[in-house]
C-alpha cells in the first residue's frame, strides 16, 4: 500500500496528523520533550494563558477517581508577557502547529490576550469558555448560548488567527452551545472540557480537593465525549477537535469516526508520557488495516 495521508485541515491550517494534546496536560511542551519529539505532533496546545499571571487554586488540586481523575488547578498561568517571551520562542523551534489556549475573567481579558497574540508565531487560538474550576470567566461564558455567541463574536472580531471555541459538557444540550459558537463566528470547536465532579475523602471527612469540585477527565469520560462529538458533528458545519479519555489510536479513531477532524490526548500523558505518539502510530495502523489512504475519508463516516 502506498504512502498514508494523515494530514487534516482546520480552518486553513494544515496539520501533519490529527493528533495534538489537550490544554493543561502538557504545559507548553517543555517538560514533555524528554519523552516526545514535538516535531511529530499535529499541533501543540498550550496551557491556558491570561492577560496577567493567575495563581490558581489552593492544593490539593487533583484526586484520582475510578478510571479517571478530578482536577481544579484553577488556570494557574504566568500571564501573556512571559508566555510570549519564553513559551512561544520555545515552540517556534519545532515543526508543528502552535495552538494557544486563551482564558480570561471578562470579555476584555480574552480580547487583550488575543490582540497580544496577533503578531506572534501562533497558528490557532483556542478560547477556553469551559473551565469548571474558576469563579469568573471560564465556564460562566460557556453555559448560556447567548453568552457563547457574544464572547465568540467579540473574540473573533479581534483575532488574527482562526479561533477554536472549547465547549463544556456541563450543559443540558451541547449542540445548542455549538450552534451558538458557530453563529458567533467560531472557525473550529473543541470538546469536551472536563465534567464537573466531586470526591469525598471519607477518612478525613472532607473534600478530596480544596476547590470541593473538580473537572473529571480520563478514560472513564470517553463515552460521554464520543457521544457529544457525534451530536455536535451533526449539528454544525465547522470542524471539531475531539477529546475526552483518549489513550491510544483506537480511542482516537472512535472520535474521528464520530465526526472529529482532529483529536487531543489529555490525561493519558500523565500515565504514559508517549501517549500522543502512540495515538499517531495507532491511527496509521488502523488506516493500513482498513486500507484507507487518506485519514480525511474516515471523518464522521459513522452516521
Amino acid at each position, binding site marked *: 500500500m502506498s504512502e498514508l495521508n494523515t494530514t487534516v485541515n482546520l480552518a486553513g491550517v494544515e496539520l501533519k496528523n490529527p493528533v495534538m494534546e489537550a490544554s*493543561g496536560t502538557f*504545559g507548553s511542551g517543555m*517538560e*514533555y520533550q524528554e519523552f516526545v519529539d514535538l516535531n511529530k505532533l499535529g499541533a501543540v496546545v498550550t*496551557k491556558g494563558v491570561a492577560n496577567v499571571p493567575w495563581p490558581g487554586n489552593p*492544593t490539593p*488540586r487533583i484526586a484520582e477517581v475510578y478510571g479517571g*481523575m478530578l482536577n481544579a488547578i484553577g488556570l494557574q498561568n504566568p*500571564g501573556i508577557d512571559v508566555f510570549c517571551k519564553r513559551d512561544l520562542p520555545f515552540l517556534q523551534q519545532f515543526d508543528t502547529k502552535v495552538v494557544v489556549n486563551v482564558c480570561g475573567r471578562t470579555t476584555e481579558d480574552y480580547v487583550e490576550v488575543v490582540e497580544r497574540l496577533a503578531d506572534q508565531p501562533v497558528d490557532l487560538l483556542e478560547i477556553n469558555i469551559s473551565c469548571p474550576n474558576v469563579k469568573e470567566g471560564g465556564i460562566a461564558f460557556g453555559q448560556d448560548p447567548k453568552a457563547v455567541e457574544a464572547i465568540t463574536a467579540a473574540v473573533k472580531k479581534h483575532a488574527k488567527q482562526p479561533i477554536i471555541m472549547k465547549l463544556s459538557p456541563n450543559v443540558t444540550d451541547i449542540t445548542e452551545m455549538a450552534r451558538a459558537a458557530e453563529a458567533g463566528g467560531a472557525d473550529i470547536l473543541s470538546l469536551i472540557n472536563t465534567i464537573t465532579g466531586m470526591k469525598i475523602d471519607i477518612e478525613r471527612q472532607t473534600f478530596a480537593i480544596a476547590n470541593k469540585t473538580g473537572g473529571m477527565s480520563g478514560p472513564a469520560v470517553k463515552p460521554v465525549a464520543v457521544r457529544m462529538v457525534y451530536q455536535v458533528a451533526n449539528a454544525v458545519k465547522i470542524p471539531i477537535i475531539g477529546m475526552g479519555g483518549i489513550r491510544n489510536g483506537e480511542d482516537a479513531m472512535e472520535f474521528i469516526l464520530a465526526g472529529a477532524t482532529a483529536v487531543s490526548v489529555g490525561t493519558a500523558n*500523565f500515565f504514559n508520557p508517549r501517549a500522543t505518539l502512540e495515538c499517531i502510530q495507532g491511527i496509521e495502523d488502523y488506516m493500513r488495516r482498513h486500507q484507507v489512504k487518506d485519514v480525511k475519508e474516515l471523518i464522521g463516516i459513522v452516521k
Partner: protein
Amino acid sequence: MKVQETGIVVSQKKLADGIYSLWVKTEQIAKEAKAGQFVSLYCKDAQRLLPRPISICEINREEGTMRFVYRVAGKGTEEFSGYRTGDAITLLGPLGNGFEKREKSGMLIAGGIGIPPMLQLAKELKETGAEVTAVVGYRDSHTFLADELKKVAKVYIATEDGSVGSRGNVMNAIADHSLSAEVIYACGPKLMLRAIKEFGEKEGVETQISLEEKMACGIGACLACVCKTVEIDDHSQVHNARICKDGPVFEAGKVDLS
C-alpha cells in the same frame, strides 16, 4: 535524563505495620538517581491511572537497583505491597531535584514516612566525610530504618508514645540532646517542617526541606503539586513553585509553610 521503564522487583519486605521495603532493578533510573529525588510508580490496575510518587530510600548504582520504603496509604500502594520477586513494575524517574549535599556537619531530621529518603542521604554525606546526625520521629516502638541509619549516622529517636528515645517529636529529641549542625536536611509532615524551618532560622543554619503534595504528571507540566513561595517564582510568575520539578527539596526560607 528522565525515563519511563519497566523494572523488576528484587525483593519486598514488611518493615512495620503498613510500611514496606521494595527493592527494584532498573536499566537506567537507579544509575542516575540521587538522594532526595523520587520516582513515579505505576499501578497495574488500569482504573488507578495516576503514578504514585515515592521517595528513593537507597540506591545501588553498581547493581542498578533502588529501594523504596513506603506506607500503604490507599489502594495503589496496597497493590505495590503485593508485588513479589520477579514481578514487573513501570517506573518514571528519577524525578525532582534532590538534596544539595554540603561537606559540612549535617543534621537529618525526619518524621514517619519522611524518614526513608534520609538513608541514602546519610550514606552519601558520610562518603564525603561529613559528620552525620539523624533525628527521627515515630509514632511508637516500630522504629523502621533506625538500625540501618545507625550504621551511617549518629541517631536520635523520638516516639509519640515515649516507648523509644525522647517522648514527643523530633523537636523534643533535638532539645533533649541540645543538637546542632551546620546544615539541616528535613523531610516529614508540614507541621514538623514548619517547626524545623523556625529552628533553622533561629540557629542561623542552612535548612533544606523536602515537600510533598498530590501529583499527576510528576514532571512539572500539570501544575497540580504546587507549594507557596515567599517571592514570585520565575517559572510560574506567581507565588507558586512546582514540588515535582522545582523541588521536592527547597531552601526552607524560600517556601511559605503557613
